[in-house]
């Protein structure tokens, strides 16, 4: 395991690279894309767990923090979708160079899945895209964030803000919300990568997204792994969610493909 900073020296990104733990030549390089806000904290252990399983299965893994999140440079108020997409591009290049692999698999959870999808659109070096409980409708997501902010503000006896939302302790400024609202994965053209939609509960939007991707000639598969998927919940003492069922499902998608390619 190698924790390090990479990217621009003025605003470096924090990442942790995990080399494969098998003797056989590893051929998979997997980039993990975290969700945003409090969901990032709640998912950290699940990503660590997934990482452990992936490296045992023979994959290179890089997990990293976007600008203004986690240990990466920047204030939480300055994060933007455009910047985070650039960060994923930077992380892909870093992983390819470190792992000495020409192509990568992207795994994203919740809004991280949405970002991974958008980042992969124009890239020819993403061989597989795993969208784990993705946010499909940005407008609806912002509505949910706004409702949480309003409920928290009322609970604290404060007037809800229309500019800077605080959501479970994380800032969601106006500009970021405007960008998120513009996202509708149902209109996303899709990626050349094989796309795996992995969900923890029955959802119409991801089924619809899969059908649309196929209609556009994309290779897409939808799989349900019934698991705890309440990523948006928060706890006054901090909590982690490690849903084994879907973690194994994500792992299976990636390692099965590795076997198929070997």
């Amino acid at each position, binding site marked *: 395991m190698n924790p390090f900073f990479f990217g621009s020296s003025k605003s470096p990104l924090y990442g942790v690279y995990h080399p494969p733990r098998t003797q056989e030549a590893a051929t998979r390089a997997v980039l993990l894309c975290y969700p945003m806000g409090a969901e990032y*904290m709640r998912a950290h252990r699940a990503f660590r*767990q997934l990482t452990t399983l992936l490296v045992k299965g023979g994959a290179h893994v890089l997990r990293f923090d976007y600008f203004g999140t986690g240990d990466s440079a920047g204030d939480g108020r300055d994060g933007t979708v455009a910047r985070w997409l650039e960060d994923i591009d930077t992380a892909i290049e870093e992983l390819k160079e470190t792992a000495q692999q020409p192509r990568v698999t992207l795994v994203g959870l919740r809004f991280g899945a949405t970002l991974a999808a958008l980042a992969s659109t124009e890239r020819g070096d993403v061989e597989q895209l795993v969208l784990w409980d993705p946010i499909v409708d940005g407008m609806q997501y912002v509505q949910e964030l706004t409702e949480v902010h309003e409920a928290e503000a009322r609970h604290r006896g404060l007037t809800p803000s229309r500019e800077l939302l605080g959501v479970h302790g994380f800032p969601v400024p106006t500009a970021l919300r405007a960008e998120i609202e513009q996202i509708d994965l149902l209109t996303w053209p899709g990626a050349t990568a094989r796309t795996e939609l992995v969900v923890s509960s029955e959802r119409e939007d991801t089924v619809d997204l899969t059908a649309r991707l196929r209609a556009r000639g994309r290779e897409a598969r939808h799989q349900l792994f019934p698991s*705890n998927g309440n990523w948006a919940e928060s706890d006054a*003492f901090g909590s982690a969610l490690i*849903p084994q069922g879907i973690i194994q499902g994500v792992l299976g998608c990636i390692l099965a493909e590795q076997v198929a390619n070997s």
Partner: protein
Amino acid sequence: MREKAVKFGANRGLVGIVAEPAAPVAGKPAVVLLNSGILHHVGASRLYVQVARRLAAAGHVTLRFDFSGIGDSEPRRDTLGAAESAVVETREAMDLLQARKGGTDRFVLFGLCSGADMGFKAAGVDERVVGLVQLDPFAYRTRGYYVHHYGPKLVNVDAWRNYVSVRVQRWRATREAARRAPGTVEDEPLEYVAPEYRRVFPPREETQAKLQALVSRRVQLLNVFSSGMPDHYNHAEQYRASFPGLDFGSLLQVEFIRGAEHTFTFLQDQERLLDMVEQWATRVFPPAT
């Protein structure tokens, strides 16, 4: 301010981020931030990152790191319990900073909840600790606690009407919090097991004796309380009153951010907390002349 990822500890299994001031300032102790429960070194609401960067900008070298088995750090290979290993690893963190070029032998430990508990334990056994910042530390009820708790309600008819149901709800919440504090893992992992730490306040006399030892060593103390422990703490003066036989002199500063959640969720509360910590550090650790 410049940040660097580090691996350290007996098996180099501990992972942390050192933040260094743009220009070193003589006389400033280094600051080590200690995990709160299972939250990794970024801290609840990214609080530890903000504190580390704010203090680094004020001239302190800071290190936020993960205890073994938490966040980015590897699990330990021995059988040491979480409370004991945390003290060992906190001292290893101080060793790391001390051994660096221009390293100091004076440290401030910073922690929320269980992080405060670990800082308190480590401060008691390591004389390099010259300052301790505890967010929601061990607290003990006093007469003042009950006055603040019941006083406003005695003259309120609605409060009496709701008394029974509120008590029941609070009992349930407290029971639930005690079971889960200081953090929960939903769906127990197969491969990566979290270290267990159950927060139990030691007897008041034991805490007082340890505080007395810190005061004798002239350790600077900053305690910041939220409203997140309503069954234990509810007003600023309560802490000093909890230890009537102890003369803190000017070594103790206690703050109470009324209404704040245990993890300082609200952005306004975070700003207040950051300001308090920076101002305290600036006051008690001025640059060496």
